């Protein structure tokens, strides 16, 4: 999310799956789309039947590659180097320099012309790092990255807790007029800085780092260039094979940079489709269960030594920019507080701001694991997750589970996380005895999608309602029921309690109508609250522009406001589709915009760039923006609008600034703020890698990656000869994440009944392995055994003159259910991207040998 958020303003897919059908070229990279988004892939196939070129860049030839026109093999973890190579190729190409479209888009819609602080220095100057690095703390001071002449940005974030979204506060401080060079020649302008930064990312360097032959790379670059411009657009589709790296955020940022240079953002068939995985994971960050976000991507308040949001005013001072759409942060936050605390929240008490939890340290998922092992965390609710299989360093996770006082697992089956105490590999091998585990484990049955009412928010920010088909049986209950009644009982418990903790619970509004024999909360009542209403009369608000900061409105999540604009009208239930934007199918945030930043689908004068690619345009006669989509722009602001001095909010943006959430309304090629590890994406090796960094030998790995160095989480050195193979983990169509929903279902289990590791015939021959043999894979975290699937779909690559083997392992498998197998995450380590705190699962190193574990833990000894 910060990858797109820091450069474009919102951390989400900029386009829709349906829009892919309008693409002239689709690049699928960091994704195995056909296998993991099979229904969405129908639009790729549709594009192909219309003549589009489909390209798949991936370490493995997968079911997506089978449908591609060009398959580009690469070493896992080098995607950023390839994107950097594409940036370099594009801006030095004849096409980009002679077709006026590109410079027009880039000059008006991006910050290419902005002059940066002259003290800025980059990896070319400093051998691999940026100016402002503090090595002992593995972090950056970002003063020198700012726009020239801007006021000093406030104290840097030193804490280990980091928001997943760029703090608007960093983006907001544009007090002085921004200095620009529209000719893009000034050596300190963003464009020239970008050009210098990527100058050594040549096709030859890309080959050395990633293993992609130069002619194949050039073919990739030329195809993308040919299919960008006024008349043609290229889309990028990515998923967790970009996110799950120590440089994941920057990899995604490199794609945003490239797509801005190519003029593809905001245009039909263009953009960046961030393919999110679970059915409603977009919803789970919109109305988050993340520790560091409030609903609608408002930052959580902080309470660390350097950053204290001790009052509502202090929070707003740090988090509220004066320009752009986030200017209305006070209205969004106060309305949220009114929704949460109701009448208890008054202007006099800062709307109960003091009751909102504040971040004092790292409480992300990865931080929780050692907290459990070290006895800091005593109890855990696990709902729809399976950390015994699904999280990094699963061995450490299971040790953590064994150290809790209590554990509640709500799921459909007895998944590995609930069964760890009697069935984990270490129990079967006799290393751990159930009677020594003190954890009290509660296993509660959870309802399935057809047994409860609710909505999914899919990868393109589209909210679709799901009806309940049948009541859940026996004691099975939905999450809404569980959380609601748990909260109700907690409120009874804490009634009259005047301690801060007690008041936090007592003050919460917690009244929803219930129905049925089990007192199931009426979900649409929750949707009402999420949409927002005026407090005095309870009337629903039409959208977030109606929200106020004086306590007169309440709203559970401002970006969803508008989903229920009047009584009885739940837009998530709409089901009228069409051949264009399908504005009457479901509800897309914000304000039912389908293609984000669609102001950029028109030229600076408001005319479509071409007839073929028209989407949204300015209607001079009506004086408003119109077209096939909801305009992602103030609807009556003319293209030639010039902001008066002192203007605030969206009035501070001119009529040709499509990126409404950014402080200056422009897409940021150079991310002056919002990211912890640099303003420009830079190639760093994965934390575990067989080779050094060909571009920056002195700083081979991310200088800011979040490490967790402990004896039970040891890392491999660069080029460690004990672990010479690159390993990547991934998903199959037939199974779902850690397997709780699929390995227990006979019809799915029989399709992929056992775990396996894919290896190339070349490696198989070196190690004497035949197809189907048992193999043991090992790292410093642990060992696991699996079956070898020898296939030419994997191939060795030549990296900087050295032959490197890659192996791949689906991570679905565990010891429970019908389909079983070795746990891939017993091998992986806890190590994170510093911006998103996402784990590095997609590229690390391992060893591999034919044979079985000394004490085999597979009960049946067969596949």
């Amino acid at each position, binding site marked *: 999310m910060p990858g797109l958020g820091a450069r474009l303003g919102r951390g989400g897919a900029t386009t829709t799956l349906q829009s892919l059908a309008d693409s002239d070229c689709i690049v699928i990279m960091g994704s195995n789309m056909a296998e993991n988004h099979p229904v969405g892939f129908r639009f790729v196939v549709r594009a192909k039947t219309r003549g589009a070129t489909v390209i798949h860049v991936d370490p493995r030839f997968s079911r997506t590659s089978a449908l591609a026109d060009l*398959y580009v093999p690469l070493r896992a973890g080098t995607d950023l180097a390839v994107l950097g190579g594409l940036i370099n190729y594009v801006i030095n190409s004849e096409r980009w320099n002679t077709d006026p479209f590109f410079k027009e888009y880039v000059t008006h819609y991006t910050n290419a012309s902005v002059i940066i602080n002259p003290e800025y220095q980059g990896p070319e100057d400093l051998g691999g790092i940026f100016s402002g690095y503090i090595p002992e703390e593995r972090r950056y001071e970002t003063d020198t990255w700012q726009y020239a002449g801007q006021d000093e940005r406030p104290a840097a974030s030193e804490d280990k807790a980091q928001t997943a979204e760029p703090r608007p506060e960093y983006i907001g401080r544009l007090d002085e007029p921004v200095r620009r060079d529209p000719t893009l020649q000034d050596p300190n302008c963003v464009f020239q800085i970008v050009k210098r930064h990527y100058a050594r990312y040549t096709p030859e360097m890309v080959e050395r780092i990633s293993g992609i032959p130069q002619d194949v790379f050039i073919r990739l670059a030329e195809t993308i260039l040919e299919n960008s411009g006024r008349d043609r657009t290229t889309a990028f589709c990515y998923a967790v094979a970009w996110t799950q790296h120590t440089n994941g955020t920057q990899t995604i940022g490199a794609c945003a940079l490239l797509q801005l240079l190519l003029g593809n953002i905001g245009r039909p068939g263009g953009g960046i489709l961030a393919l999110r995985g679970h059915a409603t994971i977009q919803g789970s960050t919109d109305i988050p269960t993340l520790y560091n976000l409030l609903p609608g991507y408002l930052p959580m308040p902080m309470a660390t030594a350097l950053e204290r949001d001790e009052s509502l005013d202090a929070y707003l001072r740090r988090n509220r920019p004066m320009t752009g759409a986030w200017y209305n942060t006070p209205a969004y936050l106060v309305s949220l507080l009114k929704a949460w605390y109701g009448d208890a929240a008054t202007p006099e008490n800062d709307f109960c701001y003091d009751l909102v939890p504040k971040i004092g340290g790292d409480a992300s998922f990865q931080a929780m694991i050692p907290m459990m092992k070290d006895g800091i965390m005593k109890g855990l609710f696990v709902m729809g997750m399976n950390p015994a299989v699904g999280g990094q360093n699963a061995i450490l996770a299971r040790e953590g589970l064994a150290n809790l006082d209590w554990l509640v697992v709500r799921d459909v089956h007895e998944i590995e996380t609930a069964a760890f105490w009697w069935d984990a590999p270490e129990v079967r091998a006799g290393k751990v005895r159930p009677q020594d585990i003190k954890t009290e484990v509660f296993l509660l049955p959870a309802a399935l999608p057809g047994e409860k009412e609710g909505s999914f928010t899919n990868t393109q920010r589209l909210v679709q309602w799901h009806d309940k088909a049948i009541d859940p049986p026996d004691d099975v209950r939905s999450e809404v029921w569980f959380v609601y009644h748990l909260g109700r009982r907690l409120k009874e418990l804490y009634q009259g309690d005047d301690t801060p903790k007690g008041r936090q619970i007592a003050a919460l509004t917690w009244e929803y109508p219930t129905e049925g024999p089990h007192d199931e909360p009426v979900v649409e009542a929750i949707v009402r609250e999420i949409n927002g209403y005026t407090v005095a009369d309870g009337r629903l608000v039409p959208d977030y522009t109606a929200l106020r900061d004086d306590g007169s409105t309440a709203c559970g999540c401002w970006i969803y406001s508008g989903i229920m604009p009047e009584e009885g009208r739940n837009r998530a239930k709409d089901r009228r589709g069409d051949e264009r934007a399908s504005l009457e199918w479901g509800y897309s945030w914000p304000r039912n915009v389908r293609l984000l930043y669609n102001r950029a689908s028109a030229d600076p004068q408001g005319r479509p760039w071409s007839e073929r690619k028209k989407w949204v345009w300015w209607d001079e006669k009506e004086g408003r923006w119109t077209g096939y989509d909801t305009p992602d722009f103030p609807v009556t602001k003319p293209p030639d609008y010039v902001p008066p001095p002192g203007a605030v909010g969206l009035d501070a943006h001119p009529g040709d600034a499509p990126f409404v959430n950014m402080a200056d309304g422009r897409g940021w090629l150079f991310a002056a703020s919002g990211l912890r590890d640099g303003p420009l994406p830079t190639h760093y090796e994965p934390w575990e890698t067989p080779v050094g960094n060909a571009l920056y030998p002195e700083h081979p790995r991310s200088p800011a990656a979040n490490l967790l160095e402990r004896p039970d989480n040891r890392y491999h050195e660069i080029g460690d000869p004990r672990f010479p193979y690159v390993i990547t983990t991934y998903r199959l169509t037939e199974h779902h994440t850690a397997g709780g929903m699929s390995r227990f279902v006979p019809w799915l289990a029989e399709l992929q009944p056992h775990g396996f590791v894919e290896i190339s015939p070349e490696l198989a021959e070196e190690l004497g392995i035949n197809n189907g043999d048992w193999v043991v894979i090992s790292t410093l975290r642990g060992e696991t055994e699996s079956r070898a699937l020898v296939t030419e779909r994997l191939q060795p690559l030549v990296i900087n003159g050295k032959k490197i083997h890659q192996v791949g392992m689906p991570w679905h498998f565990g010891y429970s259910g019908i389909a079983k197998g070795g746990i891939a995450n017993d091998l992986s380590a806890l190590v994170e991207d510093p911006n998103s705190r996402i784990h590095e699962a997609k590229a690390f190193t391992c060893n591999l040998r034919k044979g079985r574990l000394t004490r085999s833990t597979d009960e049946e000894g067969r596949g």
Partner: protein
Amino acid sequence: MSTKVIRDQPGRTGTTGARPGAMGFLTDTTLCIGCKACEVACKQWNQLPMDEFGFTGYSYDNTGDLSGTTWRHVAFIERISDSEGRRPTSMRAFQSNWLMMSDVCKHCVNAGCMEACPTGAIIRTEFDTVVVQQDVCNGCGYCVPACPFGVIALDLGDGRARVGDHKAHKCTLCYDRLRDGLEPACAKACPTDSIQFGLVEDLMDRAKQRVADLRAQGVEEAHIYGDRAVGGTGGIDGLNAFFILTAPPEVYNLPAQPELPQRKTIPASVSTALAAVAFAVGAILSLRRK
């Protein structure tokens, strides 16, 4: 790898003997992403049990074959490297080096299983599909060797806990769904519309156009499997569930020129009779008194 190019046979390519109103499938393998939604939808709708089960190591195919309890089966054929062992980068459009094909009962225009069935359990429905009436089937198994494609099979259980009913089973083309105006489960579930359902004559027109488009995009080996030229030969006269393939049928484990086994009855009987006469003559000649 050498490939035999399918030569179009004028007058037979793209034609079928399907009766007017026949319903069927066009399975366009060039759109298949190997997701197996068809296998799961079929099993779920028909409440079929899990198969004899295990890791085969054969690409992503752990189901193996059509059987009495698997009525849609996705085959995977890896043809990754060329004759010199080079891996692919630029590939032909649509489903190149990893062939994926959802196999199913062909619902033959003239069906070997139906002709072999002694009880009349196997019938042709009002949709011109071929269906086994389970209450009539006596489990004799005569239909099994009579199918040139190896589709129909007896449910013999899984060799462990599950006991089969010992009767013949295969795809019904969702006869129950068709009678309620719904499309078959597999066609509904297929995310890329690789499996298309409709009138066979409409589907055949569509397939001919698609093959022409594919050949224009460089897929020279694209052809229809299940017309009178290929797949619907030897008295079968066409397959109501037919395919678009991009390699010779043998690559997919399909017979290119199948024949109804019944067609061998007369020649086999004549040969046997001639052999009997020859033995008789030989016996008379060698055993007569001089």
